[in-house]
């Protein structure tokens, strides 16, 4: 196969995290590089001293909050330690988690697998803005529930997500109790249907997936008892997922026309397996994937093809990713998608080979409205141009690009344009570059060019 640099530039933006210097000059067809990343079957795991397992993080948070409470109660007589107080654990861990993701994104060969991780973490949002437990645990959720399954089976991903402590906390399942269970009878507690509803609406079937309020209630019943361990005991570490039989609603439950006997924790696994294999789930996943990678309004033929692959391959997400890059519709030469703020910033640091300073990138992401794992609602960040290419969104991108141009003023603008845009650069962009009043401005212009803002 001959290597077409235009196709390489297009694909590195659309499916990956953007070209690094030298990427467009490679002799290998870009399809091969993308395929190799998927077929390798390994998803890189971020690591670092603060990136501990969820129970460890939640226990440390609990301990630190306890110490702070005691210090407050001790009153002002106790001498304060000199200097500014260290950041609370949730801030330290959140920053370390984001820094680790930025390092992975910078180093990824094409970034296709990282993009899939981002995509699934957003589809299964837990939001770090919802309190200290989620601020400390959002990154761990992505490491523990998302990454191990991104190239595996959808049903394993779904089970891992639904039963992870962060999701159980975020969508209130920790507090949901079967009204007829011993705990429900004793404490007068009952159902909270938040997780049950979002599992159907956002995570599997989709809002038009044909379920009713009764199905929402049924899944909420099945989910009762799935909670987070409070104190360490024989059942597990504090902060780990626990199935409390005493809080689980007893009895068989009918969900989407199927009856699930009360087999304890197995009841949820069976129900989620069926939801994961439902044709409505296949359609929903296919639509979201195509919308994310290809076009806000993706070609119906592409969605149908991906949906069929999902069903034929039993929800194998690696096969689904390969089907995406094998689909001719996914290679439309028109760049229809506007890069999200995360995609834009990472493409900029990769293209400029600037080691990303986590504080700067996090500040820019906050200004642009897309800090990591911080969507305002469980449906995640939007995936449409209208949301990101807004007047203030673009105005802020100008500010970010101007700043990046200053930071990278040692880079040769023409070489930079060649490295990240290559044959995609239009005559207008090349002319604007030549007329730029400074190197910094020329680099900022490349970052703001339509060919870079879109993918």
């Amino acid at each position, binding site marked *: 196969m001959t290597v077409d640099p235009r196709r390489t530039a297009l694909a590195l933006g659309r499916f990956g995290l953007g070209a690094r210097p030298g990427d467009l000059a490679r002799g290998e067809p870009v399809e091969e590089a993308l395929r190799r990343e998927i077929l390798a079957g390994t998803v890189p795991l971020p690591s670092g001293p603060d990136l501990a397992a969820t129970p460890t993080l*939640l226990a440390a948070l*609990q301990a630190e*909050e306890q110490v702070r*409470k005691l210090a407050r109660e001790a009153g002002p007589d106790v001498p304060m330690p000199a200097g500014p107080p260290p950041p609370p654990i949730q801030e330290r861990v959140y920053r370390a988690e984001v820094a680790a993701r930025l390092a992975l994104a910078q180093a990824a060969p094409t970034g296709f697998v990282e993009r899939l991780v981002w995509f699934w973490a957003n589809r299964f949002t837990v939001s770090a*803005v919802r*309190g*200290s*437990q989620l601020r400390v645990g959002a990154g761990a959720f992505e490491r523990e529930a998302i990454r191990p399954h991104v190239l595996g089976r959808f049903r394993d991903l779904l089970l891992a997500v639904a039963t992870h*402590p962060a999701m159980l*906390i975020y*969508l*209130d399942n*920790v*507090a949901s*109790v079967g*009204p007829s269970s011993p705990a429900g009878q004793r404490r007068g*507690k*009952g159902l*909270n249907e938040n997780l049950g509803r979002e599992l159907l*609406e956002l995570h599997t079937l989709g*809002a*038009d997936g044909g379920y009713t309020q009764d199905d929402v209630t049924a899944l909420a019943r099945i989910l009762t008892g799935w*909670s*987070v*361990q409070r104190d360490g005991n024989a059942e597990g570490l504090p*902060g780990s997922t626990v199935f409390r039989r005493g809080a689980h609603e007893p009895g068989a439950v009918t969900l989407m026309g199927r009856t699930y006997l009360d087999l304890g924790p197995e009841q949820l696994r069976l129900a989620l397996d069926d939801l994961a294999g439902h044709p409505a789930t296949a359609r929903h996943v296919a639509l979201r994937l195509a919308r994310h990678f290809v076009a806000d309004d993706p070609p119906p033929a592409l969605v149908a093809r991906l949906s069929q692959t999902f069903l034929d391959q039993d929800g194998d997400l690696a096969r689904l990713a390969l089907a995406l890059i094998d689909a001719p519709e996914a290679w439309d030469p028109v760049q229809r998608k*506007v890069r999200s703020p995360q995609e834009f910033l990472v493409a900029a640091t990769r293209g400029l080979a600037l080691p990303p300073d986590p504080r700067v990138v996090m*500040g820019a992401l*906050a*200004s642009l409205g897309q800090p990591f794992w*911080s969507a*305002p*609602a469980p*449906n995640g960040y*939007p995936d449409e141009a*209208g*949301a990101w*290419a*807004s*007047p*203030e*969104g*673009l*105005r*802020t991108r*100008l*500010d*970010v*690009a*101007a700043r990046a141009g200053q930071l990278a003023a040692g880079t040769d603008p023409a070489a930079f344009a060649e490295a990240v845009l290559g044959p995609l650069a239009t005559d*207008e*962009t090349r002319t*604007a570059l030549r007329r730029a*009043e400074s190197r910094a*401005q020329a680099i900022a*212009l490349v970052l*703001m060019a*339509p060919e870079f*803002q*879109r993918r």
Partner: protein
Amino acid sequence: MSDPCEFHPSRRAVLGTAGALFAWGAIPRTAYAAPRARDARLVVVVLRGALDGLSAVAPLGDPAYADLRPGIALTRDGTGAALPLDGFFALHPALPTFARLYAARQALVVHAAATGYRERSHFDGQDVLESGQPGPGHTASGWLNRLVAALPAGEGIPPRTALGVGVVPPLILRGPAPVLGWAPPRLPRASDEFGRRVLGLYEARDPMLAAALAHGLDVDALAKGGPKEAVAKDPGGLRGLAEGAARLIAADDGPRIAALALDGWDTHANEGGATGRLAGLLGGLDGVFAAFAEILAPRWPDTAILVVTEFGRTARVNGTTGTDHGTGTVAFLLGGAIRGGRVLADWPGLGPAQLRDGRDLAPTTDVRAIAKGLAADLFGLSPAVLAGRVFPGSEGVRPVGGLVA
């Protein structure tokens, strides 16, 4: 982590993600037409996540109310007593500004209100509320944008006085009529010169990006004069946002129609009563009301603020001292242009047989009827235009008259 079931967000954490002001950047010709014609300002506040109307405005006179809501019900007496409205309904104690305006007959509650949507998905519910369409699945344009488009052709805000921008425009204002936005800035601004160069590139190649950036570049003397100090005190905070937004709207050549979206109302667990999570959210909303009333004072007689949410929450407290997705809820109207001091409610009752599906406050007033009544009285839009363009398929939903003073 004192308890995995508990969640104590700071107000900042809940509301900090909240929103930005989006506004229509043109002045309707009616503003100049006749010296006595009203130059009205309409602000729509969208509360995303489904406000619990039964806690915001509690039907203390309903015999079933207290029993449905152990742990979160408001009371007439004691600390944190609800603020009396009309003997039957009482206001949440975190809304003192609203209570003051109600006493001054400048605030009104519509209770047992809902859109035409009867399912319980936030996202479909928000789409219906904001698109103004009879059902979900229409996200091309919002009703406030179509309302703007239906007004007599206006004049653009003169160059150099337009607004900065907010990050994600809410659906309610998306559509063919040009929209500006504003959010408190956080990064130093790039030079205008650089902005013009990029705009030139977009104009040659990418009309969509060009249109958005052109609006974004209309950096405004108004915002520069006002909001900066407010922002400095409370960067990214709700109060700074509200004050900056109010200043923009208050200006002579400021936008006449604006929308503000606030997230975080999805109180599934530990909702709280007179104090707690919802009380914190309502307190933030009351601060927005106070900022608008104070800064818009010169325009107040011509100002109407409509506060709506996608649906209500279950009448009965759930198993986790919160409430799940429901149907009927409240809408608020406030401003000097409002004939207030009233609770409008065809009260359906909270008895077991009166609840919708045995769980929700049954809706008796369509929020489109309120919005249509407001639009008719403020801007003189005809029923045919309102049913044809602004709220398609709403012929059967008659505008509520007499909302405007």
